[in-house]
């Protein structure tokens, strides 16, 4: 069986038997893993002439949004993310997937899955969460920022009607996760903040079926929404894109502070959280920024929060930049290590020793990773088998 299952085959089951883990991993290693890039989304193919852009009944994707406030003159204020879009009647917010219809705000992407794959959790990456397991991973159209380096821009920066999608209601998502032997549902690819209502319902359906949920997010979210939506997650990965407000403003079209606030909130909520920092040559790769980041993480989240420095590959609007040199990533890691963080990883560089997990006390290797697979996993009962040091994370199902 090929890993090139189309989304409709995955969701509607026309692809035949379930994707077995071995063939999936083989595919992942052969393609995406080699580059550290995910080929996640079905291409947003042009709609053939004469055909309607949406073959599905739109109404079933439209559900009243949870996080907004009604204003005068049929306007609303979105309370989902810090952008707080004020949206007039018949208009959409910045994300492009939430629409004001006569003073009521709706999400247009509930159960509207634009990308679905079975991925190793290492691909998210979550390194301290069920190593070697796979997650039924899905995303919808839309995003509440516009990162100039986005690798999934064809879905994240599109409106729902511009992207081929399948109807996958929460119960169906849970069934699919079971069908593909995934202990976890992962909300990922575009930006789960913008499909929070779907995420919450699908997580509930998953939990009822004994399946966990994780989210890969930018963390650019209001506190109440974060608590309500990500409170349902078993683990969270936050893309902290920089430690500079200027970078967030110019490259991300967002703000840094609300993301830092979200990380602190997640910490207070006791959610297992890992941080990814994509290193872009010349834009967010100074010693000062790496040091400031590491110091902030240690002071506000603790030394045990995994921090992944990952390699950038030219995409979207930043094709003029080179791939991040490995020595730059190693410099970032060295600075974070020196600041006292216990679990600093290098990502998107297959075979690099900093992809492995080491005991911070005895320094022995505890989890060996090859590509997106966990080759060895020595942690037992959340402890280092050599020195009995507690190793934080969710290691066992």
């Amino acid at each position, binding site marked *: 069986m090929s890993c090139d299952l189309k989304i409709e085959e995955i969701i509607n089951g026309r692809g035949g038997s379930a994707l077995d883990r071995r063939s999936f991993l083989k595919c992942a290693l052969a393609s995406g893993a080699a580059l550290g890039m995910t080929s996640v989304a079905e291409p*947003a193919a042009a*709609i053939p002439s*004469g055909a309607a*852009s949406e073959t599905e009944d739109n109404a079933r994707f439209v559900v009243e949004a949870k996080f907004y406030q009604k204003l005068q*003159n049929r306007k609303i204020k979105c309370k989902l993310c810090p952008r707080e879009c004020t949206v*007039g009647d018949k208009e959409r917010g*910045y994300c492009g997937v939430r629409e004001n219809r006569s003073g009521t705000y709706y999400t247009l992407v509930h159960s509207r899955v634009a990308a679905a794959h079975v991925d190793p959790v290492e691909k998210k990456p979550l390194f301290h969460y069920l190593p070697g397991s796979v997650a039924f991973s899905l995303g919808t159209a839309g995003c509440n920022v*516009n990162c100039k380096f986005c690798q999934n821009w064809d879905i994240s*920066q599109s409106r729902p*009607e511009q992207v081929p999608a399948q109807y996958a209601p929460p119960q169906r998502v849970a069934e699919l996760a079971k069908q593909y032997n995934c202990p976890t549902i992962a909300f990922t690819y575009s930006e789960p903040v913008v499909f929070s209502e779907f995420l919450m319902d699908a997580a509930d359906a998953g939990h009822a079926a004994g399946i966990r949920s994780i989210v890969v997010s930018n963390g650019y979210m209001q506190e109440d929404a974060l608590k309500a939506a990500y409170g349902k997650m078993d683990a969270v990965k936050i893309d902290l894109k920089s430690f500079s407000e200027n970078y967030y403003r110019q490259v991300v079209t967002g703000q840094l502070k609300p993301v830092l606030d979200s990380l602190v909130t997640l910490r207070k909520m006791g959610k297992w959280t890992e941080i990814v920092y994509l290193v872009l040559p010349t834009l967010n790769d100074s010693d000062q920024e790496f040091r400031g980041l590491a110091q902030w993480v240690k002071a506000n989240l603790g030394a045990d929060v995994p921090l992944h420095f990952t390699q950038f590959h030219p995409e979207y609007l930043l094709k003029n930049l080179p791939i991040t040199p490995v020595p730059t990533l190693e410099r970032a890691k060295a600075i974070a290590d020196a600041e006292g963080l216990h679990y600093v990883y290098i990502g998107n560089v297959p075979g690099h020793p900093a992809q492995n997990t080491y005991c911070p006390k005895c320094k022995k290797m505890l989890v060996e990773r090859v590509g997106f697979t966990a080759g060895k996993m020595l942690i037992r009962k959340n402890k280092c088998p050599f020195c009995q040091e507690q190793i934080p994370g969710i290691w066992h199902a």
Partner: protein
Amino acid sequence: MSTLDKDSRRSFLRKSLAGAALLCAGGATGALAAAEPVVTESSAAGMKSRVVVARDELLRGTGSTVDSHRMLALLDRAMQALFSRDHAHLDHAVEAWRNLVRPGEMVSLKVNTLGGRGISTNVQLVAAICERLQEAEIKASDIVVWDRDSTELERAGFHLAMGGERVQCFGTDRVGYEEELAAYGNVGSRLSKILTQRSNLLINLPVLKDHDGAGVTIALKNMYGIINNPNKYHPNGCNPYVADLNMLPEIRSRMRLTICDATTAMYEGGPGYKPEHSWNANSLLVSTDPVALDHTGWQIIERKRAEKGLKTLEAEERAPHYIATAADAEHHLGRNDPRKISIVEV
């Protein structure tokens, strides 16, 4: 408020079909050789951009619907005033159109239909333009009337038409967007295939209205309707996004003329239609300089706001600064300095 009755729909289609038939009978390659050079900048004396404001108080007669004959006459007056040079009056409006288009060109008419029947580009105006384009020897089937969404076009009163010899009319939803990104400055978007594959000449047909975020939405901002991700470009009053978007070569190279439909205009509460904040301006604003046209339209809205006792857009912290950005040294999309704009009222 303009509405489209059955008669005007029939009239629109009849004119389209008649135009196609006329073309088949005509041929007229002589007109190609005699055509004036295409006007891409104002030809007014000096360095001024010309903006024609054509007005007809009786445009709606005694009813609420725009009279199609008077609309055609108003359009003719506007086009003749725009393309008359050095006091040389154009005897017939079709001469003005021959300054603009050449036989064989594929002409796209980008309307604005977000506001439904309340405030969208008038069907009668579009019908009048199609009639004159065909007289200027553009094949009916080489004209496409379009916006982002077919349903919105229908709601505004347009009949969809794909294929055949008629004027074409459909939304980008029917053909999709280019796969490749078009990028300039802060903008990276996928462009409608109607623009890139169905037209080599763009006539912009916006409406004149207030916009709660951008200040006003007229010519330059109407280009938000040709990209896949307009929602990304509303922060900071759409500045510099509007200007950056209009810099895309695919747009700039095709943009030939703006005819702003100000039969109904809106001074507050936009972009959605608010009848309580609308007025019958019974006007067209026409220019080859979209920046000058936007500046002129903005001032018209400000005058109406003052008349209604409303604050200026600047006082409301939503002045359309993107117009100045479009005129700056980097973008140079037109002129926003009133001293360099010649407003011709007819």
